[in-house]
């Protein structure tokens, strides 16, 4: 049985971010939900605030050889290497299905060069039914592009500005936690015209096979995700919220309603759920339901009341 949003109908979780009106503030994170249709048997996409596509590149990519993933305590490492169908196939094959759903659609984009980011963004201008771009300047698993840009404020600025200039959609850079000062990167995004910012992507980590005496992942290092990184993500949302005006979308280890609420309280206007989709494909819809219940029980009329509320009374 799909989880149905019927019990708390009177609570409105709708939120507007960068001019896009989301039915609720729960999004499914890039790379954890395919292109949406994969989960259609199990999840009613009409009930999710937004579906964020797997990272799209200008031409399809094959990614890294196996092994690509490995489970760690309360988390997992991945080094997929941006294995994706390419932006053209996304527009021609995947948007048709997504357009039929009430969920908002966000395309996550990347390239090896800033020119490639721009090319992908330009192509997506023709995609009917799309609502926003998420700019991947944070995947730690490719040699060129992504975290190469997102770990330097000047390159972050250049990349975000270039995409913003050509795109007809609001843009949302996704930040890496693997930086000395994430606030500096967020400021660069804001200056470059970012409409909102999502944070965080995965943390660089590795695993060693002690029997084979070698790294587990073919890429040697990978990105750590899952509940293990939630405190790190929460702290970064907290810090960035204090200096940044554009809305923040919190992501990192959110497993349930309580985790989600904590991110709103730290300063997020919306949240993304990622790794938990593998554990419970219906987690996003359950969190939507949970938020409604939470608002009802705590007499919260709008999600806006919650955003950054914990900042007002630091311990």
């Amino acid at each position, binding site marked *: 049985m799909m989880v149905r949003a019927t019990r708390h109908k009177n609570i409105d979780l709708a939120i507007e971010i960068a001019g896009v009106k989301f039915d609720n503030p729960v999004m499914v994170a890039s790379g954890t939900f395919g292109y949406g249709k994969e989960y259609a*048997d199990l999840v009613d996409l009409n009930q999710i605030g937004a579906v964020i596509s797997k990272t799209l590149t200008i031409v399809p990519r*094959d990614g890294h050889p196996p092994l690509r993933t490995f489970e760690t305590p309360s988390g997992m490492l991945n080094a997929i290497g941006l*294995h994706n169908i390419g932006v053209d196939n996304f527009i021609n094959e995947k948007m048709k299905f997504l357009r039929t759903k009430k969920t908002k659609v966000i395309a996550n984009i990347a390239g090896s060069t800033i020119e490639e980011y721009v090319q992908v963004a330009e192509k997506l201008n023709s995609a009917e039914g799309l609502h926003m771009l998420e700019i991947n300047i944070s995947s730690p698993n490719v040699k060129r592009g992504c975290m190469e840009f997102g770990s330097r404020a000047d390159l972050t600025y250049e990349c975000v500005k270039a995409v913003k200039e050509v795109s007809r959609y609001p843009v949302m850079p996704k930040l890496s936690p693997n930086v000395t000062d994430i606030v500096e990167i967020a400021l660069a995004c804001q200056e470059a015209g970012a409409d909102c910012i999502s944070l965080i992507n995965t943390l660089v980590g590795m695993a060693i096979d002690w029997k084979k005496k070698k790294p587990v992942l073919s890429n040697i290092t990978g990105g750590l995700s899952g509940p293990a990184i939630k405190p790190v993500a929460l702290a970064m949302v907290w810090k960035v919220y204090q200096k940044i005006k554009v809305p923040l979308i919190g992501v990192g280890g959110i497993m349930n309603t309580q985790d989600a609420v904590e991110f709103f309280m730290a300063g997020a206007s919306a949240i993304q759920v990622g*790794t938990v989709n*593998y*554990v419970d494909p219906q987690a996003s819809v359950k969190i939507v339901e949970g938020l409604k219940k939470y608002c009802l029980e705590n007499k919260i009329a709008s999600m806006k009341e919650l955003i950054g509320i914990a900042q007002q009374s630091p311990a």
Partner: protein
Amino acid sequence: MVYQKDSQVLENIRLGEDCFKLIFSAPEIVKQSQAGNFVHILVNPFSYPLLRRAFSIHEVNRQKGSLEVVFKVIGTGTEHLSRKRRGDTVNLLGPLGKIFSYPDKKDISIMIAGGLGIVPVYFLTRDLLRKKHRGKIYFLYGAKEKEQLYCLLDTRRLPRKKVETLYSTDDGGYGLKGYLDALLKQVLEKEEKSKVKIYACGPEGLLAKLSHLAREENLFCELSLEVGMPCGMGTCMGCVVKYKPDCNSPVTFKRVCCEGPVFKAQEVILD
């Protein structure tokens, strides 16, 4: 259709020192299940271990709506699962994955079951028998030693008139002393190769050998692969295998969870 269902444990049967058979009540999943499918099991609802564990389906009872999985305790996930008792509830996702291409009545089926690789080919055999399949079936079952032929009770019950069951153990404690490929050679000598359909699952070394053999001798051979899978639904791109459908194609990657776990032996590259 894929279902996500809280499923009750009907029975937990110990098959050996560290090997267990769990029987679940999962009518919707069972209804749709065919040989080669797997279920993705949430071993507990907490965050450690975090991810689901994938298990091929060993057998179903379509009247009762129950399915069986067989596993060895190899880590925290399987350890948790081994402690499940009758009445416990476990979340199942399934049926998932591509199935074997079932043989037709003119074909000679050769099942190759290496250790716990018996699981999907046993299901195929049982399903063929249920469907009153008329073609000849060989069932080759091997392990290191007799104690690790965990499903001996199941294979001994296969009807002799319909299934010719042959065994091998590395130490010769049961059946032929040696490996399964030696048994396969014996069978292939007797049968017309163009009619043979081989279905196999087992340790990587065995499957790699079969992959080479299938390529060299141009045999019909399907392998069920086993890898760790975070999502099981084709979204994480984490469970890939090297794929090269013919000598002119470049090596690409296929997802074991949804483009497999059953692959043509010639088309995958196993190191």
